[in-house]
């Protein structure tokens, strides 16, 4: 993203925000609530169109006509702050449907139940099974997400994002609401995905444990403006950051 300014009516959500996420890096975006972090993600995934500035992904610049699903097809996947799973479909179906852009058959094929259809369906299901196995979700494949505990739901959401074959994975507060053992599991899973799939991961997170242990590079925003950039160590000792999070007195 280059110098993106985002305005909603009279409200300026982001001012001159720039960031570059390279291949196979783990980047973090932190900041107090209301700083504009989710706005950045929404811009990146194509839900909002930037009022000013440029967004480029994979060599392609975003234009006004870009739809979010096209962004995903280009290779960017995303999870959400509130869990947005399809609650009345099984976990397996959730993972299968998110491979939609890779379904190699059309409506007529589905009606005729021909070779291509069977082949593609089988491939999709096998891939889904594999991802479920990787994420240790094999047991719950036929459950409905609404019946699963919160930690498992978060994991399903991660698995679902993974099944879209992303090159860049956006994680919006993946550890929100998790207890400490789940958080450790999450860190383990993210690191595993990072190493195994060699994708870039960009995450918004409040829990410092996750951010510090995983991110190679962190950007800090406050009120829509970038106030610091650097490695975890640099950020931890940066006075502006401390002031933003904890207030003046504690510096």
């Amino acid at each position, binding site marked *: 993203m280059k110098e993106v300014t985002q305005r909603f009516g009279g409200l300026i959500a982001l001012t001159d925000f720039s960031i570059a996420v390279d291949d196979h890096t783990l980047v973090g975006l932190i900041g107090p609530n209301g700083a504009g972090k*989710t706005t950045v993600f*929404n811009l990146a995934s194509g839900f909002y169109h930037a009022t000013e500035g440029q967004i480029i992904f994979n060599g392609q610049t975003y234009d006004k006509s870009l739809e979010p699903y096209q962004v995903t097809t280009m290779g960017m996947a995303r999870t*959400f702050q509130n869990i947005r799973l399809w609650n009345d479909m099984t976990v397996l179906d959730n993972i299968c449907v998110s491979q939609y852009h890779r379904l190699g058959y059309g409506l007529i094929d589905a009606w005729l139940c021909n070779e291509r259809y069977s082949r593609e369906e089988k491939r999709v299901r096998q891939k889904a099974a594999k991802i479920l196995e990787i994420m240790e979700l094999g047991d719950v494949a036929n459950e409905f997400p609404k019946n699963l505990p919160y930690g498992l739901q978060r994991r399903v959401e991660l698995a679902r994002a993974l099944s879209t074959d992303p090159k860049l994975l956006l994680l919006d507060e993946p550890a929100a609401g998790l207890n400490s053992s789940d958080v450790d599991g999450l860190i383990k899973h993210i690191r595993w995905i990072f190493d195994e799939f060699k994708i870039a991961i960009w995450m918004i997170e409040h829990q410092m444990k996750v951010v510090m242990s995983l991110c190679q590079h962190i950007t800090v925003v406050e009120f829509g403006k970038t106030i610091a950039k650097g490695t975890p160590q640099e950020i931890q000792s940066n006075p502006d950051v401390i002031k933003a999070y904890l207030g003046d007195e504690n510096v």
Partner: protein
Amino acid sequence: MDYLLQQTLNALQWGSFYALIALGYTLVYGVLRLINFAHGDIFMVGAYISFFVATYLLSSDGLGLSPQNTLWLTIVLTMVLTALVGVTLERIAYRPLRRKGAHRLYVVITALMCGLILENGNLALLGATKRKLPELIDKTVYSIGPLVITNLKVWVIVAAVLVFLFLQIMVTRTKVGMAMRAVSWDRFALPLMGIPLDSVIVVTFVLGSGIAGLGGMLFAMCYPNLEPYMGAMIGWKAFIAAVVGGIGDIRGAFVGGFLLAFVEIMVVAFLPSTYMDLFSFTILLLILWVRPTGIFGMPQTTKI
């Protein structure tokens, strides 16, 4: 030019009916976020109630009153009884669903079905013979230059304006009105603030249905032949008017009613009359496409 002016006067009268019914739609939608599809049929019920009341009061078997007294008594009784019908509808059909926290879809279907039951029930109970409202006032015709208008039409327009002013004052200046506006913003917080939700809703239905009843009676006075399906089409037009103006906003309903009537009258002036309904529905679709919130409405966004 005279022709246009005359048509404008007709549009004012026609629009008054639309406005009266549209106000009812808007009130209920503003408070409950429910499109009360049965509202047009409540208008029809009002017209029929006025017929029965007027016939009874006038006839010698009944009370044998003079037309002048009958008029005022009928107006009052029609509004009260129609309001009663509206409240009963709310109590039987909508409230239980609200209690259960049912999906809005179910309530809308119920509203649609209630409307159909009112129409078909009327047809089934009373048969297909058309009823005619007895004459209640002496018609005098005024001529302003080349334009012609009857006193009845003037009364209709005056009634619509008065009702609008009354509602506007009520919603913006009184406590009840404030409660109604509060409900439209956040239904669940209301009881927490000590305001009984059910009462506010009942008041809304009383107002909306009463006004529709008045509209029904006025319509019956202008066009005395009543039939069970008269509410359906007018209800739809009034609804279109409310949407065009921005459903949920009283000014929108009022303005929308006259706007739609104006368009319709102009269409009929230049095209065959069978195209009138088609035009109105097409306008509806266009508005919903281009600016779904209407003229006065407020767009709502979802947080991603």
